[in-house]
């Protein structure tokens, strides 16, 4: 098989090291700025890069616009999840959550505003924080991760108010059910648990792997991604990607995709999912595959829809995963270009 060989540039030690770092980089999390013009991406080396979406999408975009405006070392370990409030970027990875001011981050050498560590039981190993969830009504943040518990932190005071226990293995993902308000959490133990925030108690448990239609034992039972639309919930991971009706706890649609999905979200009347395999999948609620759009990374870990009202021209879908690139889809039908670390 003939392959075009790229020109070999004389590479010194630092260039080789940087190239290797980029080859082995994984982008775990993304977050859009409140103004909608910037995208933050966190990777497995603990770095956060801020990309300017408005510059990359503008008509005079050059190669440099696809590079980060600024990159800084945020955490010692990987940055597993990030979320944005109307002024701050909250990033979490190795056991602690840090807050950064969006307005300050574009300048070099910015420092975190504050950092907090939820009270952990074990001291041997610092558990990671896999998911962050904002509850706007209470102005609080929910963290969940390696210690199998959900912690609630009040954003104004910074104190940890509640601890929700119930998972038997670490938690992968969180979703918020606005109406109740309830929090859904999916974990390695294969269960999706619903928690009522007012009473701080577990309300409902769905053990996905126990349902024969969706379980896939060769993949495992872990729940990697969750999304909810009040009455409906879609979850995936080891078991197949399934749409559930929450009140009756029954699986209504099973999406026919073999690869484990790592991120799923509702968008208008579609369900977008991404996971192992290059593509972003678009599903109808009936279970039909509407489109499969290939990206540039061999596996995807996070999807982000920029729906900020302040920047309608930057309304894009960005996908990132097992590479140093963030794919930008201006139109859900094809990949427009990629931003790169």
């Amino acid at each position, binding site marked *: 098989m003939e392959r075009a060989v790229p020109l*070999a540039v004389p*590479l010194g030690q630092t260039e*080789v090291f940087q190239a290797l770092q980029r080859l082995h980089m994984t982008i775990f999390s993304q977050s859009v700025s409140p103004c909608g013009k910037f995208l933050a991406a966190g990777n497995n080396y603990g770095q956060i890069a801020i990309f300017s979406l408005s510059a990359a999408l503008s008509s005079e975009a050059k190669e440099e616009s696809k590079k980060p405006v600024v990159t800084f070392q945020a955490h010692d370990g*990987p940055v597993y999840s990030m979320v944005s409030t109307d002024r701050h970027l909250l990033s979490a990875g190795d056991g602690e959550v840090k807050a950064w001011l969006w307005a300050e981050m574009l300048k070099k050498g910015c420092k975190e505003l504050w950092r907090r560590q939820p009270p952990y039981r074990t001291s041997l190993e610092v558990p990671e924080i896999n998911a962050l969830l904002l509850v706007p009504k209470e102005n609080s943040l929910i963290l969940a991760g390696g210690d199998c518990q959900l912690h609630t932190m009040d954003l104004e005071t910074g104190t940890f108010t509640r601890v929700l226990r119930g998972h038997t293995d*670490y938690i992968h993902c969180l979703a918020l059910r606005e109406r109740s308000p309830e929090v859904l959490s999916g974990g*390695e133990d294969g269960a999706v648990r619903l928690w009522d925030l007012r009473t701080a108690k577990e309300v409902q448990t769905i053990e996905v792997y126990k349902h024969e239609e969706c379980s896939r*034992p060769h993949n495992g039972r872990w729940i*990697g991604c969750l999304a909810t639309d009040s009455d409906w919930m879609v979850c995936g991971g080891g078991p197949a990607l399934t749409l559930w009706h929450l009140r009756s706890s029954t699986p209504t649609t099973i999406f026919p995709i073999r690869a484990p999905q790592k991120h799923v979200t509702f968008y208008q009347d579609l369900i977008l999912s991404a996971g*192992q395999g290059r593509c972003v999948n678009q599903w109808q609620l009936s279970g039909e595959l509407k489109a499969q759009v290939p990206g540039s990374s*061999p596996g995807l870990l996070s999807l982000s829809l920029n729906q900020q009202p302040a920047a309608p021209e930057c309304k894009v879908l960005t996908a990132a995963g097992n590479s140093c690139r963030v794919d930008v889809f201006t139109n859900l039908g094809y990949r427009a270009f990629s931003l790169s670390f």
Partner: protein
Amino acid sequence: MSSESSKKRKPKVIRSDGAPAEGKRNRSDTEQAIEIEERRIQSCVHFMTLKKLNRLAHIRLKKGRDQTHEAKQKVDAYHLQLQNLLYEVMHLQKEITKCLEFKSKHEEIDLVSLEEFYKEAPPDISKAEVTMGDPHQQTLARLDWELEQRKRLAEKYRECLSNKEKILKEIEVKKEYLSSLQPRLNSIMQASLPVQEYLFMPFDQAHKQYETARHLPPPLYVLFVQATAYGQACDKTLSVAIEGSVDEAKALFKPPEDSQDDESDSDAEEEQTTKRRRPTLGVQLDDKRKEMLKRHPLSVMLDLKCKDDSVLHLTFYYLMNLNIMTVKAKVTTAMELITPISAGDLLSPDSVLSCLYPGDHGKKTPNPANQYQFDKVGILTLSDYVLELGHPYLWVQKLGGLHFPKEQPQQTVIADHSLSASHMETTMKLLKTRVQSRLALHKQFASLEHGIVPVTSDCQYLFPAKVVSRLVKWVTIAHEDYMELHFTKDIVDAGLAGDTNLYYMALIERGTAKLQAAVVLNPGYSSIPPIFQLCLNWKGEKTNSNDDNIRAMEGEVNVCYKELCGPWPSHQLLTNQLQRLCVLLDVYLETESHDDSVEGPKEFPQEKMCLRLFRGPSRMKPFKYNHPQGFFSHR
């Protein structure tokens, strides 16, 4: 009055004489005789009076004239006097003006200023009291002082001249003495030769070498000088020698007349030969090529001795027409090396010095002007001739002081000592590290081919005590084969798999699991780490494109290589990386979650101590080994 009367009388006389003459003729003769007598006496008296009067008139005239004359004389005398005086006045005026205009020579002399004069002059010359008031005296005094000073300086000048003469004479004497010394020293040196040899101090040899060095072409000369200097000053393990024929070098610079004669002779000969047989175009071109690529007969040999008694022999040649230097390398070891099959290229003279500096592959000529020369004789590229001519690395040119600016052919590039000196130390150190790392790899390859990963005792702490996975195979593969592998696409696309690298394939096995590792060894090992790409065959084929954990394993050896470097110089990097791969395979296989649907026990029971089996959204296995606690955790 009397004259008037005399005059009156006359006419009377006449008349009277006339009239009466007739009447009285008788009375008349006596009276007439008496009157005639009377009248005659009267006329004589009258004549006398006339004469007297005439005389008087003349005398008065004369007197008058004399008086006039006298007066005139006086006037003339006064006039003369006046003229004289006027003349004198004019003369005096002229003199005065001349005197006034007179510029005495003393005004042309720059006298010292008044203040200085009064300061410096001794009081008997300056005579301040007198001279202050009187400018004439002042000037005189100043002139005196000037004279005094000049006399003193003239004295000094004469003294200095005489000194100089003396010293010149002394110099002459000493020169003669020294020149008489030369033949005596020569004889002493001759006599001391056997002593030198006995004491191992080869001064004479060094001297001879310098003599030969005079015939070296400039770049080789620069290299020789700088290398000798460096060897003497910093590095006793470096030895420099000159090889080749000095006579041939001298022959290159024959004087033009001789060569013209030769040319005419050879022309005549050539004409004769052309009549017999025309050389073919190809042969002519070949000759031209040979001429273009001709080497200078002399070459410089550098021997670098390393700590373990292995020696790197470098021979530097100078290509005269192309104005570049090339090098041939050879490594000899203290003991005979049994070359393992995979280590064939490690120490081969062709590639042992490749990419000493990043990108310096030595296949292209560094002199941009050579391209035009090549076009004339139909040489495509120097890399065809590199085997016999040696490699024209960039660092070789720098050591010879030749600096070729990129892409811009320069008029003449001359050898520069400072360029050579600045690069000498780094290059020598790099050469030594290169040889040592290659020799270390050589030894390691011998062991790897037997399936043993040689981990030294000071690197044992990086790995757990029990490692079950074994290295089964270690072979070289060709560059093209590496590019064809399906799991190496990323490395090729990133431009890290050039043709100057060496490629190997390792196979690690445990039970039914087979892990293939394709290795890219950069010539700059060990500062540039080897790059691994993995493909695991166990329950399907897993590579970095479909299994995040395989990707993480690659990251552990490729990105976190600094932990595996071991003590400096990090010759243990490759073997540590291989050992780590074995450990990672162990962890991977043992922590694989058991599939409930399949019957039977797990193929690989978990023996490693891990805090958690999975972590993070991508469910990574614990690949990080913690020493000395001995458990595995996540990064």
